[in-house]
């Protein structure tokens, strides 16, 4: 296999990579939105998000294949489990650590601990092998030379509907309150907002999004106990590319990330994908530490 094939990229290959880029970009956009909702509001490096991701997939496939519940019901239960788990981590771990005056590094380490211990627990219960969500095979569509599946369409549609929903909620009372808390925590308390409640809200929404991402992933690929680390890392990268605290552009940064990774396939082998992502982050943090987009009003 050629690692680098500069010339000879056929138009049909480019077109196929654009379509894959849209699918991958939509998925990364959802990851970026999910991490950004939590990070910009609470400023917690919520690495345990990786465990929430994994748990959503395993609860869904567990209830579907072990208990034999209908797949849609199993997915809903998986999503509920994600929300409950995310909120519980905030209430039980982060809140009590904040109360006792733990530093953000201390909270990050606790979160990292959960992101390691959680998947281990799943491995003990389900074993280390990949497991599939029993959804059957998708229909394959071919338009010209480009092919895509039902799951690709579902991924794109579900991702953007969820992102649109979160952005629309910013206009609501809760949305405005979370914007306020992320902009100035002390002042939002002074106008009568309870930052504690907003944190719970951010964890609930962020966990719902990451759970949905996990389900979308397992439509195509097998779930493994360590499946959560990479998507959460990519979500953080999208958040930092967008500029910390800029919730509106985090999904856009995620989309650009997915697109670039996919199109890099014109010149580079797939094995370089992760290198491309970290290279992008590295360059962006040096050249535009305030985020890759022009700063607009929040």
């Amino acid at each position, binding site marked *: 296999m050629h690692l680098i094939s500069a010339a000879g990229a056929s138009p049909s290959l480019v077109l196929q990579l654009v379509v894959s880029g849209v699918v991958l970009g939509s998925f990364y956009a959802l990851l970026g939105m999910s991490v950004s909702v939590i990070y910009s509001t609470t400023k917690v490096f919520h690495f345990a998000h990786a465990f929430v991701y994994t748990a959503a997939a395993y609860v869904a496939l567990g209830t579907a294949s072990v208990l034999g519940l209908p797949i849609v019901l199993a997915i809903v239960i998986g999503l509920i489990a994600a929300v409950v788990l995310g909120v519980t981590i905030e209430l039980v771990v982060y809140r009590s650590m904040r109360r006792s005056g733990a530093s953000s590094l201390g909270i990050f380490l606790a979160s990292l601990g959960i992101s390691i211990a959680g998947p281990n627990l799943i491995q003990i219960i389900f074993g280390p092998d990949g497991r599939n969500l029993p959804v059957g095979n998708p229909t394959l569509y071919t338009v010209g030379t480009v092919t895509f599946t039902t799951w690709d369409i579902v991924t794109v549609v579900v991702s953007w509907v969820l992102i649109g929903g979160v952005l629309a909620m910013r206009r609501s009372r809760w949305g*405005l309150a979370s914007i306020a808390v992320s*902009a100035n925590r002390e*002042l939002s308390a002074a106008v009568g907002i309870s930052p504690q409640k907003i944190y719970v809200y951010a964890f609930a929404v962020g966990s719902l999004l990451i759970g949905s991402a996990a389900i979308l992933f397992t439509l195509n690929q097998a779930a493994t106990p360590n499946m959560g680390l990479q998507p959460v890392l990519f979500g953080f990268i999208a958040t930092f590319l967008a500029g910390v605290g800029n919730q509106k552009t985090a999904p856009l940064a995620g989309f650009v990330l997915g697109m670039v990774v996919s199109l890099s396939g014109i010149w580079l082998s797939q094995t370089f994908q992760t290198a491309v992502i970290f290279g992008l982050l590295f360059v962006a943090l040096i050249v535009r530490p305030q985020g890759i987009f022009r700063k607009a009003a*929040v």
Partner: protein
Amino acid sequence: MERSEKAQATTDRLVASNLVCGYGKHSVLHDVSLTVGAGEIVTILGHNGAGKTTALKALFGLLPLQSGVVIHDGQNITKSSTASRVRGGMSYTSATSAIFRDLTVRQNLELGAFTVRDSKVRAERLARIHDLFPVLKDRGSAVAGRMSGGQQRLLSIGLALMSGAELMLLDEPSLGIAPSLVTELFESIRALSRDAGLSVVLVEQNVGAALPISDRVYYLRAGEILLSESADEARARDDWWELF
């Protein structure tokens, strides 16, 4: 004089007794008692580090009290949360971070009324603030942190008014704005107190600007109230600094 007598004749809006408060084990306020009547402007004077800001934060519930009692409109609010104090008609405007700098002027004002559920009431208040400070209407979509210092101060007052505050705790409203605007700002605070019965606890370094609009003055030194007198008596002095 006349005003302060009138204020004392009515019920006190705020009565704070023997407040002791500080950061960690180190106490900053040792024994602070003060009262504020309806429509009264009370100014706390004192040098840096005397505990003026701490006193305001303690009254607003941002710092837990070690001992002491706070009564607001006849209710004991010593243990109430900040949010419930806001609902009860109290507001606090910090010297350094009184507005949401990254949000627009309109978002700021909306957030000021966060505890107000009734959208009609919110709209009425917004209209009233736009009448009071037309610049906040004209620059509604401007990012708050990009406005001039004076406009940011007006916005901070607007934010407090949006909550329906009847008792404002104002920390150094003259900080960082042009001297000509200070007089204007203080005049509008005076007008709000006269016309709408607003009570104000003012912490101010700019004694010359604060005294003309004040009814009464407290001198705070090293966490203790040294003396309280009417603003007329304070104006007659030319040696405040001895009290600091």
